[in-house]
């Protein structure tokens, strides 16, 4: 059962439990519909792929309807009191675009290879690598910036 992994991945991206649950349910529904065509070993990858694309569609619809607001910049909140590195990292992750964030989460949470991440996100391996590298640099710069140093 990969429901938890998919749920964590989507929830971390959307930060909305209800929407994340809906996407997990949709993904499983599609899995059931297509399960006869699928190699059983690919079920997890299929779930993540379906969930990722459903999430991207969801984000685009929400952005189009204006129900997703850009995350407010907090850089002016200098020397904010952070107690936990994870808290800062979560905040930094939230500031990445959805593709970069997804690539990082698929790599870190699920340990997918560049090739597998490419299959899930529809990117080629070079693009995955570039997204991942840029995301890492952004996260590092965010974490080590003076206002975020614990």
């Amino acid at each position, binding site marked *: *059962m990969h*429901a*938890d*992994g*998919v*749920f*964590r991945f989507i*929830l*971390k991206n959307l930060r909305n439990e209800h929407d994340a*649950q809906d996407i*997990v*349910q949709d993904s*499983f529904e599609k899995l*059931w519909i297509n399960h006869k065509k699928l190699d059983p070993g690919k079920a997890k990858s299929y779930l993540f792929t379906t969930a990722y694309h459903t999430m991207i569609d969801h984000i685009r619809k929400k952005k189009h309807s204006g129900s997703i607001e850009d995350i407010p910049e907090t850089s002016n909140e200098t020397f904010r009191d952070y107690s936990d*590195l*994870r808290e800062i*990292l979560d905040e930094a*992750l939230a500031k990445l675009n959805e593709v*970069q964030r997804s690539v*990082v*989460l698929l*790599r*870190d*949470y699920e340990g997918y290879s560049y090739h597998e991440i490419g299959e899930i996100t529809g990117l080629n391996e070079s693009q995955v*690598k570039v997204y*991942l*590298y*840029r995301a*890492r*640099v*952004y*996260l*590092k*710069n965010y*974490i*080590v910036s003076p206002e975020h140093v614990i």
Partner: protein
Amino acid sequence: MLYRMAINRHNYEIYFIDYHEGNLPPDREEELMAFLEANPDLKKEFDEYSEEPLLADQKIIFRNKKVLKKEESTAEFSDNDRMAIAYLEGDLSADAKLRADAMLKEDDHFQQLHEHYLTTGSIADYSIIYPDKAALKKKSNVAFLLSPSLLYAAAAAIIIFIGITAYFRFTPADEPRMTSLPQRLETRPAGLIEFQADCLVLESRNDQPSSIQMSWREEGIPPVRLASIHPLAVTPSPQGTYAAILFPRPFPVSGSDVFAMDTEVKQKSLVGKIFSGFFNKASAPFSIENKSNRAGKSDKLSIWDIADLGMQGINALGDHDYTLVRKYNEEGNVKGVRLAGE
């Protein structure tokens, strides 16, 4: 190649262009000048071509250049960054990894960078779990129920289940019954001799009541109008065979008569009549695999054992004596079932 032909009025434009762009060879330049002298009407065209080219209108500008710019999210993307990330991701070749290992020992800056990148690794929060996994499980439609024979089987199973339930639910094991069937009593039952009953004959067979309705009374209630128990043995004794036979006329019960105990319930009820009516019409084919066959039963509880038990319950409800008769195919396997009785 362009100058394969001498200049003439059909190809002079090539010479003009090349001359003004400085690409015309000297020998061809002499040829061009001779041509212009021979064709003065083209001299003006030659001179105009030499004027300044048209210039773009510099006043026309694209104002919103900002939207064309793509901001690089990475302010700093040095070789060291690249190496530190690749080291973290395991992307380095063996040689590069050796270099990186050496840098980690010797280069404080690289070591610090490496530590910073280590902190960018996200760790899943395993306390987050999907709350309703049961909802994700496939609730398949039972397509095989569409099979007519299995529909029969399902209906029969439901009825048999109700019958089994009824068997245990409505069969009191310790209630004394009037019966027309002789039954051997091992001991003369105490406590049942003194009671009195009102009986109403519902059906008779061969002038003998076969079905009665009666209400039991405890001791002390006014005498009955009808009831009689006849011992089958010539001489009543504590150990012997007794029969309860009812007559359709008032008859006082003797205080010393014995009512036979009969644990085989003989009751009619509306539910029982409905069941019996249904089963009198039902004869279901079964295509399901069953190991029971003509040769004998398995030592395990089979579907037929359950069906027989259910039928006993239905008999108890309906005061009937139905049995399930199995139909066998040539291989001796059960292929259908028929209700028999009455």
